[in-house]
């Protein structure tokens, strides 16, 4: 059975038309784009940061940046990778800014908000808890694939990488997650065994 992922055909013709209208200064197109893309971008930030206030700030920054570089969008190109490349850049800049600030002042840490779980009885850790232990690049790839529902090719474009490199990062991430889950299950099973 052939399991190689097929690149998606980017069925986002509507987004492409909206971007073209945005470049022509159509306020209606701006409204639709902000409304449609913001929830996804917010999830992208919130899933990785676990802090709503920071995610909202970065969303605002991302739109300001999108507005500033809107001329770099070329008609016919897929919109989502273009948007996520900018979002990713905003996240990296924000991360660097935090490092600069934290070296100058002692900040009061804001505790990350743990996302609510659907199944409270489940013994498995949540997605956010699990991916938090992955290296930055792997966490980003898994978030884009599973939370933002981008295809492999879209992730490759958004991360200025190749499909092969994205697949490799995803596989490494899955392997690490498997190991973590195995440890969790083992740790949960151990006390039961000891009680017997």
């Amino acid at each position, binding site marked *: 059975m052939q399991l190689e992922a097929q690149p998606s055909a980017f069925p986002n013709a509507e987004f492409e038309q909206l971007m073209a209208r945005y470049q022509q200064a159509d306020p209606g197109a701006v409204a639709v784009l902000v409304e449609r893309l*913001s929830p996804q971008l917010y999830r992208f930030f919130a899933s990785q940061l676990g802090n709503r206030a920071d995610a909202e700030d970065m969303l605002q920054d991302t*739109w300001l940046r999108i507005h500033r570089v809107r001329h770099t969008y070329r008609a016919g190109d897929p919109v989502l990778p273009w948007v996520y490349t900018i979002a990713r850049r905003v996240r990296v800049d924000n991360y660097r800014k935090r490092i600069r600030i934290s070296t100058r002042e002692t900040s009061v840490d804001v505790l990350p908000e743990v996302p609510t779980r659907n199944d409270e009885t489940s013994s498995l850790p949540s997605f956010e808890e699990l991916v938090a232990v992955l290296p930055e690049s792997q966490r980003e790839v898994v978030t884009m694939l*599973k939370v933002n529902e981008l295809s492999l090719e879209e992730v490759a*474009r958004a991360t200025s990488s190749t499909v092969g490199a994205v697949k490799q990062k995803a596989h490494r991430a899955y392997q690490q997650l498997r190991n973590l889950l195995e440890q969790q299950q083992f740790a949960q099973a151990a006390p039961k065994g000891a009680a017997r």
Partner: protein
Amino acid sequence: MTCHDIDNLISSKPGNALPPPEAAAHLDTCDECRALIGVLNEERKLAGLPAVQLERIQASIVKTLKPVRPLAPASLFLFACAIIFLSIAAIGVIPFGMQGWGALGIGQRVAVFATLAGSAVLLGVSIVGQMVPGSKYALAPAGLPVGILTVLLILIAATFRPQADPGFVENGLTCMKNGLTYSIPGALLFWLLVRRGAILFPKLIGAAAGGLAGLIGLSVLEMNCSNLDVYHVLVWHGGVVVISSVAGALLGAAVEYIDRLKRHKVS
């Protein structure tokens, strides 16, 4: 079906789509894969985005909304890069002559100039791709300038042999000066060409544009310098590419810094 096949399936299915029936047999027997899919496919409930936030974003954009001219097609930028490269290289060959070309053997000519041409095309394509966020890459742009430089240095080391060179530093500095004389205007012209697109990744584009400009200098030197000593070519000819790339990256970093200061003032 193996765990690796399941990984491929997970990556190829968007979001939390359920695995196909053919994966069921493996999932029945593999606890790790079942747990992994359970976590990746869990329905995530993140708090919603406040409507007021969206309105604020829309208002801030609409306030400064003006029509913009999209970037020209990639082919046009590539053509312009080729014209700049070839014109400056040709201008460089005219005053100094082609003694270097005459001194090289056929094998050396093919190896050196084919690699130079290939590297220039790769860097040009990479620069033009980086101007548009979300472009498709066959080679990751971050490692390309370093990769090309490494290939060039290995090629020089393999193609040339050590020869007596009594004026190593003196001749070398002259060569480097000649090479940079053509690299610097090339770098400026490349920067003028790509500056509208060098907003998100100025450092990377700067390094690539500097590298491409360095290749102009290296091409001029290979055409006119008859000194075939491997150390001379490695240090002084190769040095032109290194200096140009580093200078391009530093220029890009400066642009990024200035841009950050501007944004900081605005916010």
